[in-house]
């Protein structure tokens, strides 16, 4: 992520700015407003929790105990236990791993694939562009959640299927933005100059086109991290995302709903976790957009 932030802020590779300005731009984005500072801290905390889950979690998230079913919060189980006697807090902590992995990996994959498709369509034009644009437009007509549900309907649940589902759901959006930006960059004098002096096409794409559309793609990437986390939670809630007993915030709420008289803590805890993380990523996304793409912000 940090690398991409720097690449995007650095702009065209032929004009690398001073080392200091990259970091100050990053700092300006993450620490520019009080709300964004809080959001950045929240994201960092949740990332640390996800990375160090085995060290932090007080119990095994999968360990069931018939003797400890539906217990209220206690010094041993801070958020009580669920209908299988599993520690709710430990499940929430391990659940953060799924959210973070899907939230960061899927949009990044989608950005890479979508950008590649969009650049090819926008740069070469012709029949490639017509076919790709038609498919992109068609897929864009579907809301991401609906597209994801429809793909998951076909593929079924499981880790890699969920990565694939979320990635595919986001590809068309990235492809459209990358295509539009490529069309604009293609008209720039430096691209024409590169073509005129005989620079090979792959080099033009890699050195002149992609660095100059990176900021638009990056804006989308940060804005959609929150969407990806929501999407994973929704799919897991529907039973077509992360499969139980493997915990994810979505399926913890699903289990909790089947056991709402037993213990309210799984629903309340997982719901608050999703809300806070999505809110934090949204705030950072807004800050990145305002910094890199002022035209988009209101």
């Amino acid at each position, binding site marked *: 992520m940090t690398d991409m932030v720097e690449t995007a802020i650095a702009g065209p590779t032929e004009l690398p700015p001073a080392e200091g300005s990259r970091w100050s731009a990053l700092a300006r984005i993450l620490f520019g407003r009080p709300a964004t500072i809080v959001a950045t801290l929240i994201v960092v905390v949740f990332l640390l929790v996800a990375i160090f889950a085995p060290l932090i979690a007080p119990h095994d998230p999968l360990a069931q105990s018939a003797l400890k079913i539906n217990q209220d919060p206690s010094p041993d189980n801070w958020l009580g236990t669920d209908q299988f006697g599993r520690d709710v807090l430990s499940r929430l902590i391990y659940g953060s791993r799924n959210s973070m992995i899907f939230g960061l990996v899927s949009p990044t994959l989608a950005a890479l694939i979508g950008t590649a498709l969009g650049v090819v369509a926008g740069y070469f034009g012709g029949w490639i562009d017509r076919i790709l644009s038609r498919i992109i437009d068609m897929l864009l*007509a*579907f*809301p991401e959640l609906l597209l994801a549900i429809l793909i998951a309907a076909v593929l079924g649940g499981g880790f890699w299927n969920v990565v694939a589902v979320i990635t595919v759901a986001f590809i068309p959006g990235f492809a459209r933005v990358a295509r539009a930006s490529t069309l604009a960059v293609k008209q720039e004098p430096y691209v024409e100059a590169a073509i005129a002096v005989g620079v090979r096409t792959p080099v033009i794409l890699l050195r002149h086109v992609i660095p100059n559309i990176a900021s638009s793609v990056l804006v989308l990437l940060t804005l959609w991290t929150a969407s990806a986390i929501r999407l994973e939670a929704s799919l897991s809630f529907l039973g077509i995302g992360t499969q139980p007993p493997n915990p994810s915030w979505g399926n913890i709420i699903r289990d909790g709903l089947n056991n709402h008289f037993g213990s309210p803590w799984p629903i309340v805890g997982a719901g608050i976790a999703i809300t806070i993380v999505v809110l934090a990523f949204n705030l950072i996304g807004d800050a990145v957009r305002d910094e890199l793409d002022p035209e988009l912000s209101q």
Partner: protein
Amino acid sequence: MLRLIANRLIDAIPTIFLVLILVFVSLRILPGDPAQVALGDQATPEQLAVLREQLGLNAPLWQQFFTFVWSVVTLNFGNSLINGTPVNDLLAQNLPYTIELTLVATLIGLVVGVPMGVFAAVNRNRAPDNAARLYSLIGYAVPDFYLGALLLIVFSLNLGWFPINGGGDGFVDGLYHVLLPAITLAALKSAFMGRLTRTALLETLGKDYVRTARAKGASEARVLYRHGLRNALLPLTTGLGLSILATLSGAVAVELVFNRPGIGSLLINAIQQRDYPVIQAGVVVFAFFVVAINLLIDVAYVIIDPRIRVKQ
């Protein structure tokens, strides 16, 4: 006008065809043998052979695709693998509930969201605007199934004000059953429509004709509604279309939370039971909604903005 609608309809045909190809390819080719998946590992070769024949999997692929397209064109999706009910009956039973939920949620979302957006735009950067901004920040972040679960637990299970599950019989009972799920979906929708209204209205209020209207002494209400909101209708229509589709997909989770009949719960149950004919029909129905709503937006453009009609 009619010619334009006809053109748009013709435009939609390749889209529908592409959707059908995608549905077919993903259902028939990607996951291997649907018969094996549907019956599970313990199926005997005889059972597999029977189901393959029943699903028409023994025919060549092009023929299967033709059969599939024909089943969509004639709206005959076969029978459920689980209980043998014709899929059409299942669709007919469930579709009204999803449409009812989407319509009521859209209505609540508009009634709350648009005035909120107008109020925020008029009081730009003052307390009401900030309150509306906070509302939409939270509205974007709370997952609808979580909000639904909270509303269900508080208002249905603990306070007993609303029914716990089902879709209700008759108009009044149906409205009583749909209210809580619709409010759940309307929360995000009103946040979205509120932001959109504010943005669109602020943009039009900065235009020359608004200044002219003010200069010639038009009342503030007239400036706001006649010159401002009316010209903000185009982006609002686009947003409304997107938001109806988002509500339709959100309905899937919300139907599950409130244990409510509908296309969403039908599809999710079919996925869990690997009921292929029902999955196929559910996917096609949702795809049809997407195409139809986009078509309606296009038509709405022409009605709202006569300039588009002239350009065509």
